[in-house]
């Protein structure tokens, strides 16, 4: 099953590689991983999307907690949460396609953040499946380049991860 795990860890050099090393050494899979400092600059927050049986997810949680620099771990999928991913996609936009591309972007509530006479760069935010849906809705051959951040997640309401 898919899980989205949030980790607060010391903002130290090498902390990220400990987490990544743990996943590869123990054969856990990482679908996406994002990390950046929080409002408290001594802490980073990481969101990891992974998949595995209940036993594997339990081990992932325990092994993450065992890392010396990890302060807190929660499995967001244990309760209500919100998840967002940012995608930048550069598409061919010439002739008749140009208007169509703008329309598709509007339907998916994307924003065109850069344009030339030949292409658009569209910014799109949403769950991973919404971004996938956009990519399959447009003409595949029109896609010049995509870049995705991977999911970030946060608990709903009073589900708060902080120290």
């Amino acid at each position: 099953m898919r899980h989205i795990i949030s980790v607060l860890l010391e903002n130290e050099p090498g902390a990220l590689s400990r987490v990544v090393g743990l996943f590869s050494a123990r054969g856990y899979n990482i679908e996406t991983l994002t990390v950046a400092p929080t409002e408290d600059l001594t802490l980073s927050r990481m969101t990891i999307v992974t998949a595995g049986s209940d036993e594997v997810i339990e081990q992932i949680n325990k092994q993450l907690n065992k890392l010396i620099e990890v302060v807190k771990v929660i499995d967001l999928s244990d309760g209500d949460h919100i998840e967002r991913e940012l995608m930048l996609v550069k598409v061919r936009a010439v002739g008749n396609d140009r208007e169509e591309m703008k329309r598709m972007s509007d339907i998916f509530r994307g924003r065109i953040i850069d344009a030339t006479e030949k292409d658009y760069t569209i910014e799109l935010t949403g769950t991973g499946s919404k971004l996938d849906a956009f990519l399959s809705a447009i003409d595949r051959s029109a896609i010049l380049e995509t870049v995705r951040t991977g999911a970030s997640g946060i608990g709903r309401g009073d589900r708060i991860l902080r120290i």
Partner: protein
Amino acid sequence: MELNGAEIVVRCLQEEGVDYVFGYPGGAVLHLYDELFKQSKVRHILVRHEQGAIHAADGYSRSTEKIGVALVTSGPGVTNAITGIATAYMDSIPLVIITGQVPTHAIGQDAFQECDTVGITRPCVKHNFLIKDVKDIAATIKKAFYIAGTGRPGPVVVDIPKDITHPSQKAEFDYPKSVSMRSYNPVVKGHAGQIKKALQLLLSARRPMIYAGGGVVLGNAAPELTQLVRHLGFPCTNTLMGLGGYPASDRQFVGMLGMHGTYEANMAMQHCDVLLAIGARFDDRVIGNPQHFFEEPRTIIHIDVDPSSISKRVKVDVPIVGSVRPVLQDLIKQLQASKEKPDAAALKTWWKQIDVWRSIDCLKYEKTDKIIKPQFVIEKLHELTKGDAFVTSDVGQHQMWAAQFYKFDKPRRWINSGGLGTMGFGLPAAMGVRLANPKATVACITGEGSIQMCIQELSTCKQYHLPIKIINLNNRYLGMVRQWQQVDYSSRYSASYMDALPDFVKLAEAYGHVGMLIDKAVDVEPALKEALKLKDRLVFMDFITDQTENVWPMVKAGKGLSEMLLGSEDL
């Protein structure tokens, strides 16, 4: 007081009460060696290879309750040390390893003797640090000792670039009294409610079993384990790492369990209805095939300081996270306060069954005076040292025989590489053991394959007058490899025969030690006696043993615990 980086490092070691540092100098640690030279509190032991330094610090730690310390240089100093670090990591041994690094400005430039020490050691340490400022040295070393020795212990590497220890780099020295880390707070006390649940299960058990591992030894909980087992009257088994955690000569001890465990221990493990696991981790060499293990229903209680060891390979019913010793103390307290007693009738029936299993006498071997049986040598060693020696071992058949036939009654007497299975561990580990226990008899049980992996340390033993007794069980084969080839590969002995062995007697003599060749069974006892009498000499005893002897019982890889082979007739 303002001190330079190298002075600070040495002062930190003094503050930690470190008496020995095992190491090998090199360019990146010259400032440190210069400071070591100027003082006498911390004594440096010069090994002959960095692997030996780590194993020696490891042996020192295993035989005491202290943290072992090693010092190596950058690049090859570190890569040579990796085997030792990984060995300590797998067996949860607390070490602090100080490694030199190229100067800060040269890091990443592929400098001479540079390697990414933090990166290369990351998967085999509990934690590691790269110090980038002389001001951080004291706090980092304090943290390193704290992390190494608390919770589930393990090795910690502190990498220090050469410029940080330069005499011109100074900082105020103030060794922290304590450490507090928001991200690291190991649990000590167990949950009282869980302990209560465990007690009720134990008291209601009809076929109980206590399975104790290295955590009992490392957690200094052998007296508590013994008290608990005796109070309950239950059978107890130890893992390879846990030997000595419960006295092997006691009737309630059913022997080691696992791949080469006793018949009675493995059968009791398989057929018990309530299992209390203490500081053990249900690894593949212990329970064999987990599916087979699950076929018999049982309720499992698991006490461990490391939550990730619980329900990792085997689903546990009552987990108790905490240091083994305080948890056992609480359990004993609750047991003493309880009015209930274990079911005496059920226990009697259970012991009757265990005695039937025991009567198979699975460790029997042919008594003969025609050839030296390796088991016989170990039995004699046990007898002549009154079971009170420190015994280190390498890895292979001799290790299993030592575990089976040297009956350890005390913890921290049996020093071996159980997790990583590192050949070459025994001799350097014995050096650390002997330095930590300067009056003790220290025997290194090894084989002609393993001993050659760190043979250079014979020179260290000479330099520091370490009178280790080396018991070389020489069967001219990589015995355990040969045994598996016999069992699983139709006796095709691929690369397991040792041809062109050195003359070990001459070799020992060349290093300035005493060498003995023993090739007759009748000479075993007199030779051991003579060697033990030479209290101030290292004696290398080369026993020419039966080439075809195998370790029995054996649970083949992937098989279940109750599917033991008891001897060649089962092949």
